[in-house]
């Protein structure tokens, strides 16, 4: 059970994606964080697939219509 939550709604646009990747990169293997957003972050999932293939698991916890929560876990090697 992850206790790390990142509410990206209050981060200015140009800092959103860098903040998400910094959080992910700071995780240990097998750890996870919950991303909270005001729209479906599906493009981000593509970006994870392109830049960190095979290194993450993506699980929707809440799917709108106002708030989206995604549990993003770092795969164990």
């Amino acid at each position: 059970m992850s206790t790390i939550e990142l509410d990206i709604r209050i981060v200015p646009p140009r800092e959103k994606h860098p903040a998400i990747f910094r959080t992910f990169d700071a995780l240990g293997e097998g750890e996870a964080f919950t991303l909270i957003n005001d729209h479906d972050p599906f493009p981000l999932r593509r970006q994870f697939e392109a830049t960190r293939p095979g290194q993450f698991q993506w699980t929707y916890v809440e799917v709108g219509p106002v708030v989206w929560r995604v549990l993003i876990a770092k795969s164990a090697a």
Partner: protein
Amino acid sequence: MKLSLSAAAAPGLELEALDAACRARGLDGIELVVAPAGDGPTLAARVRASRVRVVALRAERLDDSTAGSLAHLSGELGVPASAPLDEVTRGSLPKLVRVFADAGGTLLAGFGTDLEQVIAATAALERAGVPPSVGLAWDLRPSSEDLSSSGAVLLAARRHLRLVRLYGGGPEQHQQDGRGIGPLLVDLAISGYGGPIVLTPSAPAELPRWLAWLASRKSAGCGSAHPSGEHEVDVRDVEPKDRLGTILGAFRALPLGATLRITLDHDPSCMYYALEESEPAGTFSFRKIGDGPEVWGAEVTRRAPGAAAS
């Protein structure tokens, strides 16, 4: 993290209306602003009757005559009350500790992003034996504070930090420079902070925009996309959640072979991934233009399905 809204954002709204606006925005609750001469018991009864989700209280002034009533309200509602650090340290800390402990309430001293101030505040708490009835709140002002020391401030305050109050965000977010909020939020997240983050206006002059923002989930009060020419779209004034829809709409309206020029205030790579996810393969080509740090651009050309992408 529980994102919440201070009632300071909409001083004229009734509690119930404010709570409804928060729900529509996906916010988790409200910070009630308590007037120095406010009627605590009546307010507590109103909150309980309305089932409004109050996550914290705020008092801008605190003295011997008001501390007791604030402590009772905090205890009655089971939520912490914050006040500016100066207001807390002006009085006697042991006395405040006792008043809040007796009422079953919690007092949080609101500090700014100033390492010396935070170290002094944590030292005072530790001298007082780290009483559970007193802790710290971070009064964060990204538009007027230097956030470069925020990592050290968080490290110093972490043990006692129970509330973060962000002056800005909401409708102010897209025009704030905001440099440093991202890294700070990452540090907060990684530190395991799970408490409330309360949004509050940075200045009274911002209130009309907050009201408009609360009144509508759409982009009212937050600007809208303006086509700056044929096949051009500038989404810098569009709320982040509406940007993708705006760009996809403009792209799908393009004639075959035409190119859409997009202007943004962040790296457009995510728009490439969004197009890749939502459009059939081979129906667009994408080119990033410029590399910030303030403005980015992209060109998207609509291709016929099956045509070779250039």
